[in-house]
């Protein structure tokens, strides 16, 4: 069998070689050279450019039509809604620019395809035109910058809310821990040298503020309508706390505490009733059924979004957004660090 394959390959090479020789020999007989671009070539390639432009746009719209509703659902946080608005405005703008300029490009590529009868127009510059397409983008960009920075300042500015929930997200290879302040409303100090099996986030055992802190894994709860201020830390390498449904992201950097805050606007239960989410989940569960997997419900997620090692792709935590009363009931049931430690 392998001998036959070998034989076939050898024959193919010989045939290819002979073919090339014929082509090479016939070169000398032709008046025009193979590499010379003829009117036919220009005509064909010019038309192909046009066709490509049309197909390219068709492909673009096909994708938008097919995949746009698989984008993340509408933001579930207050600032996220603003980001979405700004996103849409910018996206419209660049889509128009993208379509217009590509249209000109492929139209000209077709229209001015070469012909030996034609002569190009000598047109080296036009200051007015150039001024036009310097000023117009500049003005458009000014708007983009102004709105972008306005929202950026609001989102990243210091928290002014008094009644807020402070949560620490602690990252390590390859899982997350959420730490709540407990009754005293203060997170205890930490010291990475005190990390041990029983002290996974490195609480400073001399700081009494830490005694009532609450640690949770796999899933954490937050109340709807209240500002959540996240403080992020990392034990080993850089991770990134990415909560895409809330339009929230911040790196967790060893040696420093980074922050991000947002106010969730929709509980997990409410999100599961959202028509967009229902449709999206139907699509997801249809695919899961094909693969013989169990159907799933919508959940908010915290993902790691900075390369952190071999299991980077599986570093996740569920987020449950509750009504405030449900949240209070849940947090009351959680055990403080000290009580957990005492029992050991």
């Amino acid at each position, binding site marked *: 069998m392998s001998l036959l394959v070998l034989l076939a390959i050898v024959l193919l090479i010989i045939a290819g070689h002979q073919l090339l020789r014929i082509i090479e020999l016939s070169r000398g007989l032709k008046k025009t050279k193979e590499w010379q671009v003829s009117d036919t070539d220009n005509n064909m390639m010019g038309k192909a450019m046009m066709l490509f432009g049309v197909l390219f746009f068709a*492909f673009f719209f096909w994708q938008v039509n097919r995949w746009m509703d698989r984008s993340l659902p509408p933001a579930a946080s207050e600032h996220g809604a603003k980001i979405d608005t700004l996103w849409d405005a910018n996206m419209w703008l660049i889509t128009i620019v993208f379509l217009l300029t590509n249209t000109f490009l492929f139209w*000209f590529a077709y229209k001015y395809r070469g012909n030996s009868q034609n002569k190009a127009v000598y047109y080296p*510059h036009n200051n007015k035109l150039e001024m036009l*397409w310097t000023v117009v983008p500049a003005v458009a*960009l000014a708007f*983009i910058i102004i709105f972008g920075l306005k929202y950026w300042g609001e989102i990243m500015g210091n928290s002014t809310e008094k009644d807020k929930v402070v949560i620490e997200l602690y990252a390590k290879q390859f899982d997350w821990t959420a730490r709540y302040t407990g009754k005293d409303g203060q997170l205890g100090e930490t010291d990475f040298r005190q990390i041990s099996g029983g002290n996974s986030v490195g609480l400073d055992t001399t700081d009494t503020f830490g005694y009532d802190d609450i640690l949770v894994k796999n899933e954490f709860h937050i109340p709807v309508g209240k500002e959540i201020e996240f403080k992020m830390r990392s034990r080993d390498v850089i991770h990134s706390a990415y909560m895409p449904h809330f339009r929230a992201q911040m790196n967790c950097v060893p*040696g420093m505490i980074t922050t991000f805050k947002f106010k969730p606007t929709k509980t997990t239960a409410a999100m599961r009733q959202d028509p967009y989410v229902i449709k999206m989940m139907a699509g997801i569960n249809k695919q899961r059924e094909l693969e013989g997997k169990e159907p799933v419900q919508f959940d908010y997620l915290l*993902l790691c979004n900075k*390369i952190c090692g071999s299991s980077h*792709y599986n570093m996740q935590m569920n987020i449950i957004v509750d009504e405030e009363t449900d949240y209070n009931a849940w947090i009351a049931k959680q055990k403080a660090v000290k009580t957990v430690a005492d029992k050991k």
Partner: protein
Amino acid sequence: MATPTNTSLHEEHLVHHDHVHDHDDHEESFVSKYIFSMDHKMISRQFLITAVIMAVLAMTMSVIFRLQLAWPGEKFAFVNAMLGDKWGKDGILDPNMYLALVTIHGTIMVFFVLTGGLSGTFSNLLIPYQIGARDMASGFLNMLSYWFFFASTVIMVSSLFLNDGPASAGWTIYPPLSALPEAIPGSKMGMTLWLVSMAIFIVSSLLGSLNYIITIINLRAKGMKMTRLPLTIWAFLITAILGVLSFPVLLSCALLLIFDRSFHTSFYLSDIYIGGRPLDNVGGSPILFEHLFWFLGHPEVYIVLLPALGITSEIIATNSRKPIFGYRAMIGSMLAIGFLSFIVWGHHMFMTGMNPFLGSVFVFTTLLIAIPSAVKAFNYITTMWKGNIQYTPAMLFSVGLVSSFITGGVTGIILADSTLDINVHDTYFVVAHFHIVMGLSAIFGMFAGVYHWFPKMFLRMMNKKLGYIHFWLTIITAYGVFFPMHFLGLAGVPRRYYTNSNFPMFDNLVDINEIVTICAIIGALAQGVFLFNFFYSIFRGEKAPRNPWNANSLEWTTPMANIHGNWPGELPTVHRWAYDYSKPGKDVDFIPQTTPLEEGEEDGGAH
């Protein structure tokens, strides 16, 4: 602008070359002609062929990890054949090797193909040719530049065969992941070799860049004012300046990382507990690394892109049979891009914990860069307007470049806006953006350059029909690979995930990943057409005439033979800019730069 006063230098060259010329072709040994050559044309060929080999390697890597992303857990004999039982057991890619492939793919493409390959090939080939010089200012440094480059590629490739695998912390090698061998196997010996390779590469890049700058400034032929230079040369000049100013910063960045890794310093490390113990390192910050890295990293984007844009300017003008539209505006916008590229690095760091109000400054500067970029795109399109476009394969790729430059450029406006970056930072939206700019635009520029200047490099012509097939397959599949990635980003898929199957929320994206991978495989195979055409034409292509594309610039006035000193007799004298195509009142549609101005005729570059 004063005319260059370098006649004495030239005469020296001339005398020298006239003297040795008779012996050159016969007595030169194999080693001095093909290996340790100091001739800019041979060095250019060396760069190109090395880059082609590296590109094939990096592309094959991408096919391997694309297979895994579209069909995770599926067994592929190809994966096993490529990686062996250790990294591709039963044909399934190992997660650590996945990260290693992603890392080395990025490193090779960015540094070896698009920096070394693109600048090294075309700066070397075209600078002496297009400015009318005998060779580079220093042939010896030029030779060293190539051999440092070669050594760095050999070291990088050899790291693939290490027991623990090559570097795998991503091409941006952020510490602590890259600094701690406990964090990932690739941060053992693999990372050491990566850093050594990169340090040598930086030396190569600096030697090359300094040479390019000096040559352009000092060795221009008589009459070759700066405002008569082809835009290719302007692009190479600005690229070289960017390289000289930014690569040393990468070296310092890498050096501090080497210290942290080998000598227990704490430049980038603090408060770390790993491998069951707290580390002694205190006081450093990974943010420092990120600043240093991106201080090179962002100019690097333009180091990659500007030569491609320069090449395209030349090819679009020549093949539209029209002067490049807005010659001075093109130079101005390249200078503006070059300047701005040094003050935008922070836009890679909006989400890193850097002070958000510092981020605001970078939003402003980054969005400014869109203005000169837009000017360039519009000027290309206007150059084609009312042209008489000759569709050589090079022209096809140039048009492709303009299209992808726009497509990839507009999403940059989104990513530069810190507010919008929050949710797409480090997702596939970013991957789509920079691949369309670098993987399409810059690579198209490189292909265009190869097709256009192949006759000058190898004295033979490439096959046109194969070039056509290559272009169409490439642009269709390349857009097929990278356009759908935007939608993965919109769905929130993070980059560098070994598989998305651990998140039910990404289950409905399977078909997108399949389309991407299928396009990637076809696109990779299509490069076989190019490779065949390239290597076949080197040996058996049709003999090239002196000026196959009827172009104006000086390289087409040299005889079709690779002779030392480029011009057998005197160096040419330049009388006009490089873009007198279809000038009214002339019989032919091109006027070489060596043709004297007629009485009362105005030089086109003079506006």
